[in-house]
Every structure is written in structure tokens, then in C-alpha cells.
């Protein structure tokens, strides 16, 4: 079921939570609403569910206007951040709730309800806990029961509010994979809210980045990561190394640092953004770039060695971070305080006079 959001606005008193949101959520896909807290992502999710009434705009499910429809009639499954399991009911009573409250003529028979509940509990692999009360479950189990409950009425749309927010790292990873495979199997349209960029990129088919009540960028995870539209999106998706400076004569310069740009560029103030894997570390500056650093810290845990660098003779708001392979690290054995140079392979240039960033590549030019 496709979800279309058409010019939604929502205010809480003075605070405008959503402004002019236009968005299409494709059928059968897993979409992430990503943004920092206060960006309006949960309000948007709740508006889709019908738990919030937008001040302006329309919401359509498969072309049908549901803006005026009560939550009860929207037939969406909603999983709450803190699960909202009914404390006084057992696990199976919780899961059966949605079926039991259906009007008598639509309600399945009792044995049918029992069968469906068993099926759902098997799906979330918790059929052995049917008789327990929510207080006796762990966080991950509660989350899965909440999911089973939301899916009891076979909704075509599943909405999840920070589904893994309250879980520890290991359980989160496990549940993430499990949700992905469940989604691939059942093909409902799902939307989940998260502030964790890794979660959004790993889990979803499409990511909606939100900021201060507006949509900043909508793209597939790959596009989003390699082609961010704005400094905000760039900054929000992982570590960024920035070189703020001024372009003159095709060279971006600040203090002792300079980078020769591979494409012609008008003279302007600009900022060059580089991801940790788009930069190499060398002993000597190259002919295209002169970016001197002192090594501040070295972290050897993980698939690659992360080196933190302090600019030497120029300034950047935050330290730079560059990843090098373990073998390169072992061959050279750099130490804290050593001087080294960064050489960019790929970069993203944000000029003040351009609205879109320019992706630069130094691969062709010798360096």
C-alpha cells in the first residue's frame, strides 16, 4: 500500500513540528524516518497512523484520502517506542486483543483466534512465553510481542516508533536482522523512526532525512551516503572531515593547508567534506594537496585502524579521522605526535554560491 503525504503541517502551540511535508512512501518497502530529536519524525509517523491530526494537508493510502479517518479505521499496525504492552494481560491475550475487539460479525471464531495467536507467536519465535505477563519479559521479547500484536489484524502498513531505541547493542542488531527478513517475507509497507543513522542505512530501502520539521533528503541508503544534498545530511551520516577555506585560482586554501581542485571552480568561500575512507595518509604531501597533521590518537579495535588527526598550521572545527588498514599500520607503525599528510581521493565541495554540493575525484589526476 503506497502512502502519500501531501503538504502536511502540524504545530503544537508555538512550536511547528512539521512544515509542508510532501512525501511518497512506496508500496512494500521499508522506509526510515531519520533525524535528530525534535526533527518531527515521530510526529510524522503518528500523523500517518492517525494518532495526530495534521493542521493542514492530506494523507493518502493507495490513493484513498484517509486524513479524516480515525486511527481505529486506518488499519495500520503501530509499534510504540516503549512497547505499550497491556500489563494485566498475558502475552497471548495481548496478541489476541486486536482480534477480540473486532465487531462480532467480522470477528474470527475463538479457535480461529487461538490459531492465529499461535501462528503470530511462532513467527516472533516466542510461542513458549504465551502464558507470561509482560513484566516477566526482557526488552527484546517485549518488542517482538509488540510487533506480533501490531500484526495480528494483518495490516498492510506497519509503523514503528524507535523500534530498537531501548535495547542493548547486541539485541538491537539481532532484532534488526530479524525485522528485515520478516519484511522480506511478508512485504507490508513499513515505516520506522530512528535517530541512529547506521540503523537507518542498514535496514531500509529508502531513507527520509528530516530536520526541524522539514524533509531534507529522500534517497536510497547508498545514494544518501555517497551523494548527500546538504551539509546537514553529510554531517548527520557518520564522521566527516572538513576543510573550510577560500577558493582562489582553483585552489582551496586555509593557513598552511591547500588542495588543488580537479575541476574549475569560481572563487568563493567553500568547505570541502571528506569521509574517513576517502582520504589516504602519507609521509609526504602530494602535488594536489598539502594537508599537514599531527597524530592525536590511534584506535586499533575493529576492521581497520582509526587515526585521529589534529590540523597542523591550519584549523578545523573537529579533529579529522582517517581509517587505514592494519597491514599499512603495522608496516609503518606511526606513533602519537608524528607528523603526516592527508591526500584526498574523493571529496564533496560545498561552495557558498552553489545550492548543491559538487563531488570531486582526484583519481584521474596523478597524485
Amino acid at each position: 500500500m503506497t502512502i502519500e503525504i501531501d503538504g502536511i503541517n502540524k504545530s503544537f502551540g508555538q512550536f511547528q513540528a512539521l512544515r509542508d511535508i510532501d512525501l511518497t512512501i512506496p508500496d512494500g518497502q521499508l522506509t526510515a524516518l531519520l533525524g535528530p530529536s525534535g526533527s518531527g519524525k515521530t510526529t510524522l509517523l503518528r500523523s500517518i497512523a492517525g494518532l495526530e491530526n495534521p493542521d493542514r494537508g492530506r494523507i493518502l493510502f493507495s490513493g484513498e484520502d484517509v486524513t479524516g479517518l480515525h486511527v481505529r479505521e486506518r488499519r495500520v499496525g503501530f509499534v510504540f517506542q516503549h512497547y505499550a504492552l497491556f500489563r494485566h494481560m498475558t502475552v497471548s491475550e495481548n496478541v489476541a486483543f486486536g482480534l477480540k475487539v473486532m465487531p462480532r460479525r467480522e470477528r474470527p471464531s475463538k479457535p480461529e483466534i487461538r490459531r492465529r495467536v499461535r501462528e503470530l507467536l511462532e513467527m516472533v519465535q516466542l510461542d513458549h512465553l504465551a502464558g507470561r505477563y509482560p513484566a516477566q519479559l526482557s526488552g527484546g521479547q517485549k518488542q517482538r510481542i509488540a510487533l506480533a500484536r501490531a500484526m495480528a489484524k494483518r495490516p498492510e502498513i506497519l509503523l514503528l516508533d524507535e523500534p530498537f531505541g531501548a535495547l542493548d547493542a547486541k539485541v538491537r542488531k539481532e532484532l534488526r536482522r530479524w525485522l528485515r527478513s520478516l519484511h522480506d517475507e511478508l512485504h507490508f509497507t513499513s515505516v520506522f523512526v530512528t535517530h541512529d543513522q547506521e540503523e537507518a542505512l542498514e535496514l531500509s530501502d529508502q531513507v527520509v532525512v528530516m530536520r526541524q520539521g522539514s524533509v531534507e533528503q529522500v534517497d536510497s541508503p547508498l545514494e544518501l551516503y555517497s551523494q548527500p544534498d546538504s551539509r546537514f545530511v553529510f554531517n548527520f551520516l557518520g564522521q566527516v572531515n572538513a576543510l573550510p577555506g577560500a577558493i582562489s585560482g582553483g585552489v582551496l586554501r586555509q593557513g598552511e593547508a591547500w588542495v588543488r581542485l580537479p575541476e574549475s571552480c569560481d572563487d568563493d568561500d567553500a568547505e570541502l567534506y571528506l569521509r574517513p575512507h576517502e582520504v589516504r595518509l602519507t609521509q609526504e604531501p602530494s602535488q594536489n594537496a598539502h594537508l599537514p597533521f599531527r597524530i592525536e590518537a590511534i584506535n586499533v579495535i575493529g576492521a581497520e585502524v582509526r587515526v585521529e588527526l589534529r590540523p597542523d598550521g591550519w584549523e578545523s572545527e573537529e579533529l579529522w579521522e582517517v581509517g587505514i588498514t592494519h597491514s599499512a599500520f603495522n608496516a609503518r607503525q606511526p606513533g602519537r605526535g608524528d607528523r603526516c599528510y592527508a591526500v584526498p581521493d574523493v571529496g564533496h565541495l560545498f561552495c557558498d554560491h552553489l545550492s548543491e554540493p559538487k563531488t570531486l575525484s582526484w583519481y584521474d589526476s596523478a597524485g
Partner: protein
Amino acid sequence: MADTNPSARPRRPGVPVSRRVLPGFGLSLGITLFFISLVLLLPISGLVIHTAGMGWEQFWFVVTDPRVVASYKVTVLAALAASLFNCVFGLLMAWVLVRYEFPGKRLLDAIMDLPFALPTAVAGITLATLFAESGWYGRVLSEFGIEVAYTPLGIVVAMAFTSVPFVVRTVQPVLEELPAEDEEAAVSLGASDWTVFRRILFPVLWPALVTGGGLSFARSLGEYGAVVFIAGNSPYVSEVISLMVFVRLEEYDFAAASAIASVVMGVSLLLLLAINVWQGRYLKRLHGGRG
């Protein structure tokens, strides 16, 4: 230079290590028990001793006197009606106070406790005046043929008035803590408003409501001041137990007075105990015990 760490003091043998993290358990429990003994246990023992002096047969004779038995019936039925009324009305008031924002909410919240602050005799006289045939309410009600003052119905009104804060104040905090998400979850699963109340809210409010109702009932059993002014106090019809105790005292029959009083006390105590035990079990289920 082996093993000469100056910070490692050897533990003195024989000094017990306190295993409690929270300090002051002994002192605070001591003061509590002393105070309870002083204001509760001592007078109650006096009551029991007084009663014990009269022998079983005599005790039975006193407490089963037909006029006294009639007063048990009147009191228990009136208290039951009053506390049931309070459960409904108190829940409604707590609901209004928690769920809605309106001007004067703070004031209404404060007024809620007035029945506790008002001297019960004042409450009784006021109610009697209002519900008397010439009073504001009495005049209206008498047109429908309803008599409140000087009938058992008047007893119910007085009891309900003096004990309604029990229900409001026990239900209110539970209602406040109830997460809105639970209701939203139920509605998103298609439940009607009435179903949400019956299946989601009520089971959680139920223990608090029973406690409030129980307290209200226990208080009503012993209510004297407010009741005697409006009850009419005609034997076998509208006499309450506490009045019977007072009558015996006026006759200088202290033993009989304490015998009747001990019956009221015993019933109240049993009731409160039963509520506590039941509630303990119910709450354990909600909070993770193996219900």
C-alpha cells in the same frame, strides 16, 4: 618491599559489617512501633481488656441484642451503598482532575479534601439542614416523594460525603501514571472507547478503586458525627452502630459499649487486611511475580 601497602588496613576481627545500604532502619522502625503502640495498640488493648472482663455469654448477649443487630444491618447496608456510590463518583472526579485542563482545576483539587477537613458534626448539621423538608435540596426532593433527612437514605448521604476523598485520592495517582501509549495502542488495534475503558483502564485502576472503596467503607462503618444529625435515630430503622456505642456509654455500661465497639473494629480490621492481601497478589502479577 613486599606487601606494605599503607592503604590496606587490616579488618578488625569481631566488628560486624553492616550489610544494609540504607541507614537508620533500626531507629526509624523503633520510633514507628513506639508511636503505633502509643496511639493505636494501647487504646485497642484497653478496649479488648474491658470487653474481656464480661465473659463470653454476656458478650454474646450484648452484641446480639435485637436493637444492636438492627443497627449493624443499617450501618453495613448504608456504608456499602455509600462506598459504592463513592467508587463511581470518586472515579469520575479523579478522571476529571487528571484528564482535562480547565480553569479552576487547582481549586477543585483542593476542595476535594474538604470533607476531611470539615468537622463531621458541621457536615452533619449542614446536610441535615439542606435535606430537611424545608431545606434547599429537601424541598425539591420532596416534590418527587424522596425523603432524605431522618431516614436511612440520609445516613448514606452523610457517609458518602465524609468518605469520598478516600476514593479520589487513591485513584488519582494511578490514573496520572497510566501511560497514554496503552490507550493509543488499544485504539490503533481497533478498540472502541468503551472497550478501552473496560479492558485497558479499568483493570489497572481496579486495585486502587477497591482500596479507596474499602477505606471509604471502613470509615463509614464508624462514622458518628455527620450521621447522627441527619439519621433521625429511630430505633430499628435509622440507628447506626456508633450511636449504639454512645447510647451504652450514656447508660454508664462501659463493658457493653466496648463489646459493640470491638465488633466494629474487628470487621474493619478484617476488611482492610483482606484488601491488602488481595491487592498484594494482584499487583505482583502486574509487576513481574508469577501470578
